[in-house]
């Protein structure tokens, strides 16, 4: 038989003023199963809590209803008190007499009547509560960070600094990401490589970090604390253990005309290559597509020249399985393909370039050694037109959103160009200037006021190449209210920031959602900006939304904090409000599996003693379930129930309201 205790709080005058608490206590005492019903001035005070604890012990209570404020306020307090008195904390429920009754009604008899109802409902519910115990999940204290750009490097370094192991997976031959390609960074104009490369080296040498470059995530199984990840280590054809990074191989490689991805196709590289001189690890790989030894079996120069015999043409991809407890996705971004804009030449005009190409032209280590020279003829351009919002804020053909960083880097580009070409003319077409950030607006003002960039507010409607090689840029100056036409030598498009192609696949593997643009979805846009719907998977950097470097680094460090928090205890305790499948009733229609926002409902084979599969059913993974109960309502057989909100409890509540 249920033995329920009811405790009515006056909350000083807050409840007591409009609710006759003594009368509620009296009425509650008459409810079936209630053995003690008391009211008190402040139930949350020490004496109040003691009153509950004493009653639990003396009356051998099987359930408690505290009728006080909102459970959002003090449920934890009272449940802790119950636990201290030896009652399972999940056998305590709260009736909300303050926020939902005394504060919103003035008529004392009516409010008192409603308060009795609220208590009665909770009494009937709590009678059907059962003891629940926090779910313990083992945690493998190793993190995997996917993406070796600044976001991934920062997250890995911070986790490693916290004393936990990190596997940093990067698909290209070197870490560094886009930041390694930048010339200078806004708003301070410090050299990007100068501030980045020490971090890259630190990541490579940190004892807690395992670098896996030229590798890609192939499969992700498991759940928070217990992910099993399969990583494809692509064939490098160079044994990194033997290679010293001396560079003889790429110096001698006869295939030297391959457009360099790192240089945004403006420079060239060899078939055996490191992407850039400061690459980490500084060990080359062979590009199997362009190496004649691998394609035609002819050449072999690198093998002959290598003093360490590190070249292995027989190398194969390798699949490595690792166990990790948390995953940080830091896969970054790429630039929107502006060839979709026919009016800007549809990608056919070689002197219409994107932001990265300009970065490489401006970079001291770039293909022009930092001189601004246009791709078509290598001449120094005298007029450069910069166009912002190329593909951004364009629902029709491009992306609907603002790419956030373009205003700043375009100002930087205009500035760098004017610093390098003193008599040059920099014209910037913009829609709005969005320079919200520390020192950002000052920076754009500086570009305009000190460095003489001409800002034209308006869109460019057409770019074409005149027979003399000039690029004619026609647009509108909406402030002056007239069309403008500029004869330019070089046009730089601030292409929209878009997520990495193929990023959806990784998201699906991890159970992470993504928006219509392909950016990964955070668990809550305001309050959980680094978590995802998949517990144990976190987001850093531009894979979640366009971001500049400081925001990216901040988010990466936030990820590290989340990961270290998760790894702080060997076991993870989770709220036991989870769904459970009655496997006898489940007919495996898979509705719940389709429905679960967290991928927590999964197929489970039931086998007989011989190991034959006799039935397949759905099963809830406690590690993933967040307790929303959507699967429960979707199940036609009602083979699923939700602890804490069982059908029996809810039906009792409804019946009590009759």
């Amino acid at each position, binding site marked *: 038989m249920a033995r329920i205790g009811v405790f009515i709080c006056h909350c000083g005058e807050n409840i007591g003023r409009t609710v006759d608490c003594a009368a509620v206590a009296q009425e509650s005492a008459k409810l079936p199963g209630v053995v003690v019903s008391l009211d008190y001035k402040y139930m949350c005070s020490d004496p109040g809590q003691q009153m509950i604890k004493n009653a639990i012990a003396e009356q051998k209570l099987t359930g408690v209803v505290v009728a006080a404020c909102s459970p959002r306020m003090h449920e934890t307090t009272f449940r802790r008190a119950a636990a201290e008195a030896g009652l399972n904390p999940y056998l305590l429920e709260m009736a909300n007499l303050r926020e939902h009754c005394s504060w919103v009604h003035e008529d004392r008899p009516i409010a008192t009547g409603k308060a009795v109802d609220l208590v009665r409902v909770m009494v009937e519910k709590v009678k059907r509560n059962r003891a629940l115990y926090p779910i313990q999940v083992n945690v493998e204290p190793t993190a995997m960070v996917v993406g070796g750009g600044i976001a991934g490097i920062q997250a890995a370094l911070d986790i490693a600094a916290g004393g936990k192991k990190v596997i940093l997976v990067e698909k290209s031959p070197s870490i560094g990401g886009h930041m390694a390609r930048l010339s200078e960074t806004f708003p301070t104009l410090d050299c990007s490589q100068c501030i980045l490369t020490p971090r890259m080296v630190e990541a490579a040498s940190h004892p807690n970090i395992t670098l896996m470059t030229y590798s890609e995530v192939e499969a992700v199984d498991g759940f928070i604390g217990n992910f099993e990840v399969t990583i494809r280590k692509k064939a490098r054809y160079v044994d990194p253990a033997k290679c010293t990074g001396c560079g003889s191989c790429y110096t001698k490689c006869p295939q030297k005309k391959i457009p360099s991805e790192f240089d945004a196709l403006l420079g060239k590289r060899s078939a055996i290559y490191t992407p850039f001189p400061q690459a980490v690890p500084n060990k080359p790989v062979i590009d199997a597509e362009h190496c004649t030894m691998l394609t035609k079996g002819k050449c072999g120069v690198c093998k002959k020249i290598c003093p360490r015999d590190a070249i292995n043409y027989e190398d194969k991809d390798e699949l490595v399985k690792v166990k990790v407890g948390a995953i940080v996705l830091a896969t970054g971004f790429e630039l929107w393909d502006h060839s979709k804009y026919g009016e800007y030449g549809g990608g056919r005009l070689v002197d219409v370039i994107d932001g990265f190409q300009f970065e490489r032209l401006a970079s001291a280590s770039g293909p022009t050694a930092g001189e601004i020279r246009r791709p078509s003829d290598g001449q120094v351009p005298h007029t450069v037109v910069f166009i912002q919002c190329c593909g951004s804020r364009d629902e029709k053909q491009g992306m609907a959103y603002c790419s956030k960083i373009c205003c700043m880097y375009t100002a930087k580009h205009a500035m760098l160009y004017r610093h390098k070409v003193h008599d040059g003319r920099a014209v910037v077409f913009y829609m709005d200037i969005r320079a919200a950030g520390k020192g950002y607006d000052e920076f754009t003002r500086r570009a305009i006021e000190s460095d003489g960039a001409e800002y034209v507010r308006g869109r460019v409607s057409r770019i074409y190449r005149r027979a003399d090689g000039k690029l004619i840029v026609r647009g509108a100056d909406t402030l002056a209210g007239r069309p403008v036409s500029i004869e330019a030598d070089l046009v730089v498009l601030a292409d929209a920031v878009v997520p990495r192609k193929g990023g959806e696949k990784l998201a699906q593997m991890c159970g992470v959602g993504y928006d219509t643009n392909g950016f990964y979805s955070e668990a809550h846009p305001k309050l959980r900006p680094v978590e995802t719907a998949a517990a144990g998977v976190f987001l850093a950097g531009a894979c979640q939304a366009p971001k500049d470097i400081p925001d990216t680094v901040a988010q990466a460090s936030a990820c590290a904090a989340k990961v270290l928090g998760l790894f702080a205890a060997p076991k993870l305790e989770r709220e036991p409000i989870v769904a459970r499948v009655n496997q006898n*009733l489940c*007919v495996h*229609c*898979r*509705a719940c599996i389709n429905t679960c926002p967290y991928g927590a409902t999964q197929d489970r084979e039931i086998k007989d003693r011989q190991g034959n599969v006799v039935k397949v059913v759905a099963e809830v993974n406690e590690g993933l379930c967040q307790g929303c109960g959507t699967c429960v309502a979707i199940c*036609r*057989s009602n*083979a699923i129930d939700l602890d804490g909100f069982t059908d029996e409890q809810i039906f*009792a509540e409804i019946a009590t309201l009759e």
Partner: protein
Amino acid sequence: MVANINEIQSAAAALLNEGKVKLVLGYRVRGNDRVPAFVTQADQVGCLAYDSACTQNLAAYLRKGEVRSRMPLAVVARPEVMRSLMLLTAESQIAEGQVTVLAVDEQGFHGVLDLAGTAKLLNEQYARIAPDSSLMEQLAKIEAMTPQERSAFWSEQFEPCTRCYACRAACPGCFCERCIVEMNTPQWISTAAESHGNFAWHMIRAFHQAGRCVECGACQDACPQGIPLMLLNHFIAREVEREFDARNGYDPQAEPVIGSWKQDDKQEYIR
């Protein structure tokens, strides 16, 4: 009888002879009735018959253990039955290789198909099955009534329901191990064959058909009391198509309609 009944028989015989199936689920003639035939030997195929009076949805047998134990099997299936098979595939009750389809319609036999082939045939040949016009007329009449009249109409219709659950038994979509109406902790739906129990039963039965009913009519045919269940079924199917642009039983990989969502699903009624 359809003209090329011999072709069904010989196709069935071939499947049995070649060991491709262990059982052919079809129809046979018994007096004025058409009843299910369970043919396990090639020499029994002579009993197989098909005409428009063969209205049972044989896909309903696929939940029976006694029938499932004889998989792989073949089913004589008209378009609605094929759609049931698509639903059962989508809801992982059957899989390719377990069920072969002997496709029929009122014109006759249209060949032996696997489930993928059945999906193709359905979408090519039977993409639009016109709903029964009398159903639509009746629905229009009911919808034109006042709420009180509608309530009275249905209470009159549900009154004779004895809760024999013949409707459930005849429906291929009702494959639950234990039906919601049989849950008693708590008792979801009163099992008494009285007003509120009957109302709840018929509402929930219809709701559980949302996005699933292929409108084969087997439930209504099975009802000894003549309750017009197809009115509810057709209404639900119509609403599902209107609201979610979904038609049931055409895609063996379909996501459940109730169990998936679109951001722009209508919500004008939500304030």
